[in-house]
């Protein structure tokens, strides 16, 4: 915190302090000359009655008491409500502008960094940062992170490291699961309340769901298609045998749980299919669940009808 320039008397004191500081320090060496100059060369009185001048006591600047008029914040974002966040953002933007010319790598090749999760970041800055704004910050972090590692300036590295969450979650290599020795891939998935386990082996298109024919389990064609979409979209329905266990939930949930599980199992057999399966939507998790009922509500959101009396 710096002291704001005070008015009036204080200002005068301040200037006095400044000048005296100057005379104290820089001009100290030439003081004798000054004194000599100051000495009057003519006399109006007799020399004998000269009274030695008593110097004013020196001002003790250490205990100099001065009240500032008001305090100016160090950061311009002080009154914005989330100054630390905005400072961080400005700092990153400045870095980004400074290093805009550096070569970058593709997003997929950039080193994987575990940035703060939103609650952690809020703790870090101690401010209620909205999700959207934090996302924009993470976006800049990602862009800075894409600078080619060999050209990465030290200041950028240090700044980026500030936003890493403690512990390195990406330190251990994730080993993709593969087909076991008997050629069987096992995929698990959930959707809504359903849970499916799929075992996929190379075969000629036989499908069993809970030991039954798929037609008996999913009477709707739509659900059957959903369940086997991973194989259908890649034209591998007649190249694998599928053995499915599914439980919980309703028909749609079961079918779509199988969709995801089959997609995952197929990915173990043929990792090269990943882009296609991603496009087909069969390895994308649908995390939606039934919204809980809240007290005071009739259902999750529905409110009781309002009655005047």
């Amino acid at each position, binding site marked *: 915190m710096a002291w704001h320039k005070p008015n009036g008397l204080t200002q005068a004191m301040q200037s006095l302090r400044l000048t005296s500081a100057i005379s104290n320090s820089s001009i100290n060496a030439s003081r004798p000359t000054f004194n000599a100059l100051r000495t009057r060369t003519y006399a109006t009185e007799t020399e004998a009655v000269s009274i030695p001048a008593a110097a004013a006591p020196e001002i003790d600047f250490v205990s100099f008491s001065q009240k500032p008029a008001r305090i100016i914040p160090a950061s311009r974002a002080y009154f914005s409500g989330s100054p630390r966040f905005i400072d961080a953002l400005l700092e990153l933007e400045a870095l980004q502008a400074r290093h805009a010319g550096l070569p970058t790598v593709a997003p997929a090749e950039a080193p994987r960094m575990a940035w703060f999760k939103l609650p952690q970041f809020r703790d870090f800055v101690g401010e209620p940062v909205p999700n959207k704004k934090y996302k924009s910050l993470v976006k800049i972090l990602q862009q800075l992170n894409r600078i080619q590692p060999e050209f990465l300036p030290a200041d950028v590295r240090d700044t980026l490291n500030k936003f890493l969450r403690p512990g390195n979650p990406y330190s251990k290599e994730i080993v993709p699961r593969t087909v076991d020795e008997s050629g069987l891939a096992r995929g698990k998935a959930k959707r809504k309340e359903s849970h499916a386990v799929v075992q996929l082996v190379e075969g000629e298109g*036989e499908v069993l769901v809970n030991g039954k024919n*798929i*037609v*008996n389990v999913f009477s709707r*064609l739509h659900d059957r298609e959903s369940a086997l979409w991973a194989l*259908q*979209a890649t034209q591998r*329905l007649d190249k694998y045998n599928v053995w499915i266990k599914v439980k919980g939930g309703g028909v749609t949930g079961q079918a779509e749980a199988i969709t995801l599980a089959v997609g995952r199992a197929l990915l173990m057999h043929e990792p090269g299919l990943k882009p296609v399966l991603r496009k087909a939507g069969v390895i994308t998790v649908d995390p939606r669940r039934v919204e809980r009922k809240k007290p005071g509500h009739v259902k999750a959101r529905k409110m009781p009808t309002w009655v005047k009396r």
Partner: protein
Amino acid sequence: MAPGERRALKKRIVLSNPNALEIEGMVDLSAETMVDSRLRGTVLGLPMPMIDQLRAVEAFKPKQGWSIFRRPGTVLRRDTIEMGRLVEQISGEGDKPQKGKVAKKIINGMKGSGKSVHLLQAMAMAFLKKWVVITVPDARELVCANTAYTAVEGTKPLQYIQPNAVSALLKRTVEANRELLAELKVSQNHPSLPMLQPGSTLEELAKLGFADPAISWAVFQAFWAELTASAPAAGLEKGFVPRPPMLVTVDGLAHWMTESEYRDADYNKIHAHDLYFVKHFLSLLKEGDSLKNGGLLLYATSLSNNPNPLALSIALDRLTAHQAGISASSPEYPNPAAYSGADERVLELLKPAEKAISPVELQTLEGITRDEARGFYEYFALSGLLRDSITDQWVGQRWSLSGGGIIGELEKLGRRFRAASA
């Protein structure tokens, strides 16, 4: 909405779609093509003159998807060819003629596996071979208490007649087999029918039952006696023609294996086996040559509106076990659980007989093979209903999606409208 309109809409059967393309060179079902294994997997058209006969015996069901094609046709699948050979045998033709043989089959299988269409194909073959075709298109109608019933005095336990149902059966049979019945003359004595003119045809005999439901049961008994007669009675030899083999089909057998919706005087449920009509057809399944002139009994189960009686499933399991060679004393032999209350009458009726003359067989219809499915889909494509190019892989996909070639599901997939097929 007018009364009965909804029901009429439900029961409406459309056999032709004029928008579908006419298929050049479509082969019809005939005595030759029905046993031709080279044609396996192709869709054979039902001969146009036969359509009315098949309609008369109510062979078509509303939801079998006839309405999207130009004309009705059925796939010649393995089971069809086997049945064709059997029909040929019983007619006394083919490689191993066995004239007078009676084959009794219970047709089982998954929903949509083609049980009813199998019956239809049997009827078409029987018509081709000039058999007498007697059908019960929906077994449920006999036990759902929708048709009148009267008790027969002096029977114990009390038995019941359904005069209107019998009358309808006679009507169906005459309409479908008119030409054949017009040639057959009455050859037995029928003291219960004094109004019967001597020397009248079987058609005229059956017609007696149309007009007066009160005597329809007696007429039916006489009619049956005539059809199963192997020789004329004394004094009636003139103009006797050997009776043709018979095809008897029943669809929805499970309804006959439990208690009916009818009530007796004490308001207890009447067992389906106490209905004369039902009892007559079920008695044909018993040991021995129930059809004296040979023929085929095809009793199919149905999974739409299925009462699913426990006793029937055990009985069918027993038949399967018997066919697999498991003896009744072995521990694997299916038995009802204690206190399960499985219907003894049903178990007794369908008991697999040792060394029976013509035992009941259980025929389970599975899905069709990929090759047959391909032929089926080519029929769709030729009718202009499919725009995709049909490859083995394409067919294989549908085969898997249909639960292994369940033909009803294949048909649903075929009529599926997809803008851009994968």
